[in-house]
């Protein structure tokens, strides 16, 4: 459905500008915080106004913007947008009792500020949109990109998924029971039989078009689903694989969004149960955190594998048995309700 030609990721791990996943970075105050680069390419006058979500999104996109002549659109998925700026403005409202308020935080808090800033920086007046559907915000951005390419063959799109974790949205998510109460290291995220996962943040950006030549990877198929019924999800996944996996081939690698939350483990175990004996299984949430747009990190990771970058032991739940990795299935869900399946191949 589309080909990925460039991809960059800013995350809590060493993923930008060079990739080295061997060393696992740990949470700080229970949060997997992104390692932000120096952002050399962003003029200081613009950088000073950006909240973290915008910085990460723009930072991860900069190498693509530098290497690309003509973008036909910018399509971003973000569940929360500029949450830190949102709460900063909210705090002003309370502190100054709706009096004299500085509007910068308000303007930067809007979800579409990431895509807007990207458009501003490369003077791009074309298609520009922001999907905010929580755990399927990125996947809807993917569907949008697929449709854009269907209707406008030959175009190039910047596609991305971004979410930040500020103290404030961490507080809200904590109150909602999203994270493990006990203090754990992310190395042991999957070992505890308890509810909750771990907070994270990051941005993954992709240059996408319909040209096979020189592509890093092909997104062959995508399906999204809202359901709490594990039987229904399992059936849908089975049908998805049957419909899209080329005849005679197997899933070589399952990139699993397993997140350490015992309330949603059943979905991931069902998915593993559908795999062949030879399918390797790799988990990534202990690197990225349980971000609503985690599938963006997963897609970036798939591209790393297809570019023959080895994955460290701490990610491997079931090892590779052979040298080939042609078919990658990325399965992720957010809070056991929003599910996505992606089939990614080299060609």
């Amino acid at each position, binding site marked *: 459905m589309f080909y990925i030609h460039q991809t960059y990721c800013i995350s809590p791990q060493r993923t930008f500008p060079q990739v080295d996943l061997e060393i696992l970075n740990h949470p700080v105050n229970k949060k997997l915080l992104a390692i932000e680069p120096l952002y050399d390419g962003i003029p200081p006058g613009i950088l000073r106004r950006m909240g973290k979500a915008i910085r990460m999104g723009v930072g991860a996109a900069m190498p693509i913007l530098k290497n690309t002549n003509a973008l036909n659109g910018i399509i971003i998925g973000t569940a929360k947008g500029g949450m830190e700026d949102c709460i900063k403005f909210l705090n002003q409202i309370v502190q100054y009792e709706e009096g004299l308020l500085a509007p910068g935080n308000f303007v930067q808090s809007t979800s579409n500020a990431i895509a807007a800033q990207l458009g501003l920086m490369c003077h791009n007046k*074309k298609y*520009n949109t922001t999907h905010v559907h929580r755990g*399927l915000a990125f996947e809807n951005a993917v569907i949008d990109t697929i449709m854009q390419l269907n209707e406008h063959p030959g175009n190039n799109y910047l596609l991305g998924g971004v979410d930040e974790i500020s103290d404030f949205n961490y507080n809200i998510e904590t*109150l909602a029971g999203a994270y493990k109460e006990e203090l754990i290291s992310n190395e042991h995220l999957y070992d505890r039989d308890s509810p909750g996962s771990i907070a994270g943040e990051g941005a993954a950006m992709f240059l996408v078009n319909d040209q096979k030549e020189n592509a890093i990877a092909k997104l062959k198929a995508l399906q999204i689903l809202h359901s709490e019924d594990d039987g229904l999800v399992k059936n849908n996944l089975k049908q998805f694989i049957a419909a899209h996996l080329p005849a005679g081939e197997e899933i070589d690698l399952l990139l699993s969004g397993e997140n350490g939350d015992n309330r949603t483990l059943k979905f991931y175990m069902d998915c593993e149960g559908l795999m062949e004996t030879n399918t390797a299984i790799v988990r990534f949430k202990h690197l990225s955190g349980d971000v609503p747009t985690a599938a963006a990190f997963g897609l970036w990771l798939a591209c790393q594998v297809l570019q023959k970058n080895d994955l460290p032991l701490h990610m491997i739940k079931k090892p590779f048995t052979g040298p080939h990795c042609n078919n990658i299935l990325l399965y992720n869900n957010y809070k056991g309700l929003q599910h996505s399946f992606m089939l990614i191949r080299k060609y």
Partner: protein
Amino acid sequence: MSRIFITGIGVISAIGNSIAENRMALAEGRCGIQNNLDLFPTKYSGVLPFGQISVSTASLLNNFKISEPGVTRTTLLALHAFAEAIQDGGLSPEKISAAETALVGASTVGGMCLTDELYADANKNSNGSPYTSSYDYASITMYLQKHYKMNGIINTINTACSSSANAIMYGAMLIKNGFAKRAIVGGVDSLAKYTINGFHALHILSSEKCTPFDENRKGLNLGEGAAFLVLEKEEDITGKKVYAELTGYCNANDAYHPSSLSEQGDGPYFSMQGALQSAKLSTHQIDFINAHGTGTENNDEVESRALIRLFEKPPPFASSKANIGHTLGAAGAIEAVYCVLSLAHQEVYANLNFKQPIAATGLVPVQSYKKIPLQHVMSNSFGFGGNCSSLIFSKA
């Protein structure tokens, strides 16, 4: 690719709680903007004009018999408009729950209408209000998905004031590209202390009722509302009531400034031009434009310039924001519904409060209700972040 038709609509705004009430109020030139905001404690109550919907949150909860905690006013308004749209469109529960039925919503406020509760939860000053899972923009669409047991593609879009125009576009594309057979699309926003203070801090709220396209305009009035439309393919509309066809659309970006449009208005110009190209229409074929027309100095002049630049002699146009205020995430959808009503009844509604054209551009909007022949109508929505979208609806 499939042709897309509108077979059902639903709306709630400061001028009415239904399609019929909205249409009557528009025809009569009624204004729903008043200085009596009473949804939450704010120093702007009684000071600034707002387009508040006259139905209380308590009675919305009661109407839908909702007893579970965590349901915000934004969600309730959406529920109200959605319920009207699916009934109007004659959609059975089975069709709504089918995997081929998509839902695309939009909101810029989400559950942040509960600004005070959000403050308490974000600063952990409480043990957690019932709303901790209801603050984000997706919460409304997720509630509709659950309430109506929907199993198709579900999405939420936030591109500021053009959000629900983009939701309509996305829904149409899902059908054309085979991801859905039908789509229920729209948007909602309720009044919120957060947005009131944000817009006030930017000095773009007027202390009087707004005067779109007037030389002496002083800013916008915020409003609240919701609207949904049922989009279906040509193959599926036999025997159905059809309001209009969605014949063109375009999303373009002004790429100039985070919260204001450029002087030459490239974003508005390209979105209107692109919509015409996608509809394969020329400028003289547009019979009426529902303008974005917020009443701000920046928007109305830039939109006027872009209209002149594209059309040379622009067709009749009007803004409905003087009737209901600027409903932000709902604006694109509410105004799409108004365009569809215009086409179905071959009538246009007045741009209220207009006295004097903008000196630099001289454009004069429609100032009274009239019945005129309409074949093609355009609707504009221009937002923060330079996000500009234009939709074209045609007589079915």
